[in-house]
């Protein structure tokens, strides 16, 4: 073969280039990822998942949850809202000004000029930053996913197909573990028309003993076991729910900034 050595070198160069771009470059970029500070707070993010939640990731993996659920929230844009905190000493001037200004869905520059104009009129304002996009509008998260979200996970259950909803922030969306357990046992008892298969083998249906189990599911009649029986979650179900509860991507980070919604007043 003519030019055999040149062909060999070209193939080696192509392999090396793709290795460099697909393995080496990401490793250099994110290989040193570590905990990062939460914006405007003294906390760090992420914290390692508690033991049962870390075991739950393996249950998640074993049951192929990632085949139908993603854990990656997309963000299409970012918008600023200017919020009036107090009208100051000249409320009528501020309210006249507010009537003429656009205050929501601004970019950073126009939010700054709007808040400067209100401040000049004596009003006290705050600029709130929020993520926008179809995933955000569905309530699946408050910001896009970042590499730090998966810092303590192995394997990373990113998922690629959305038969079911995204779970990146499910611990904030659906914070009730009892709801999650019942949903695993009988999805359609809670979500009408759900296509999720029931994971009944993560539960045990057994005869009620001397005392009913405190863990027994409180099921509607249609899904309840025969009289005298109760449905109790196995450890795997509890671990899986602990993992789902630990999925929180609701804190603002430098690389995913937003203004967190004000905490509810008691």
């Amino acid at each position, binding site marked *: 073969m*003519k030019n055999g050595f040149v062909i060999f070198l070209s193939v080696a160069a192509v392999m090396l280039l793709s290795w460099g771009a697909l393995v080496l*470059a990401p490793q250099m*970029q*994110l290989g040193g*990822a570590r905990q990062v500070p939460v*914006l*405007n*707070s*003294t906390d760090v993010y992420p914290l390692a998942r508690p033991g049962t939640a870390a075991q739950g990731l393996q249950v998640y993996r074993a049951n192929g949850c990632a085949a139908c659920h993603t854990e990656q929230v*997309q*963000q*299409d*844009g*970012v918008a*600023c809202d200017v919020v009036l905190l107090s009208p100051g000493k000249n409320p009528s001037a501020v309210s006249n000004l507010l009537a003429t200004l656009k205050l929501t869905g601004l970019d*950073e520059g126009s939010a700054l000029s709007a*808040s400067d104009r209100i401040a000049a009129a004596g009003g006290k*304002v*705050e*600029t*709130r*930053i929020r*993520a926008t*996009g179809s995933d955000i509008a569905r309530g699946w998260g408050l910001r*896009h996913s*970042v*590499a730090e979200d998966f810092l303590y996970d192995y394997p990373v259950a990113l998922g690629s197909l959305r038969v079911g909803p995204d779970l990146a922030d499910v611990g904030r969306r659906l914070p009730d573990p009892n709801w999650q357990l019942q949903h695993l046992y009988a999805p359609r008892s809670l979500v009408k028309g759900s296509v999720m298969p029931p994971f009944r083998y993560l539960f045990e249906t057994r005869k009620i003993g001397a005392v009913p189990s405190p863990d027994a599911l409180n099921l509607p009649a249609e899904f309840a076991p025969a009289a005298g029986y109760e449905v109790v979650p196995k450890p795997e179900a509890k671990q899986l729910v602990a993992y789902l509860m630990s999925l929180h991507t609701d804190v*603002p980070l*430098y*690389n*995913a*900034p*937003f*203004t*967190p919604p004000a905490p509810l007043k008691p």
Partner: protein
Amino acid sequence: MSDETPSPKSGTEPTAARSHLPMWTLVVLLTLLYLGGIYFDHHSGWFDRQVYAPFDNAVQLEAYQPKSGAAAALAARKKSYEAVCGTCHGNDGIGKAGQAPQLAGSEYVITRGFNRLAHIPLAGINGPIKVAGKDWNMAMAAMGAALPDADLANILTYIRGSWGNKAGEVTAEDIKAIRASLGARPQAMTAETLQALPE
């Protein structure tokens, strides 16, 4: 099959004839390269690991960091405190043995007013002093003398409102007034002169 081209002589490899690169190919390639450059500029984030999808570059990301609100103000105060005071007084305000007394629960911090507290960073302090039941005999330079009024006010507000301290806010105007009353080269405070001041 009469017009079949004659097969090349066996033993020689066929070669393509050399010809010039057509001009239209060059134009198309350069146009694609140009469009690719624009796309790269908008979507690569210049390979910065902090820059994710909706943001084009690090400058834009920086512009969208939340800057206002109570949480942002607290974070700014904490940062100033840790830069100036935290090394000796501790980022947790409990002080460090042999370096500086505690600020958490200190009787010089949680006073009704902040006159005495403000004098310490503005004028410095030395000599024996008793803080929260412990005796100290050291010197502190006038760490706040070179700080802008607003920064020092932020730091004192942070000290008076953190680690369980629940004293009030300090404003830049207050610091300005105290600084003016001290003059250009104030004498370092001692426990006695500090006690003599109004709260």
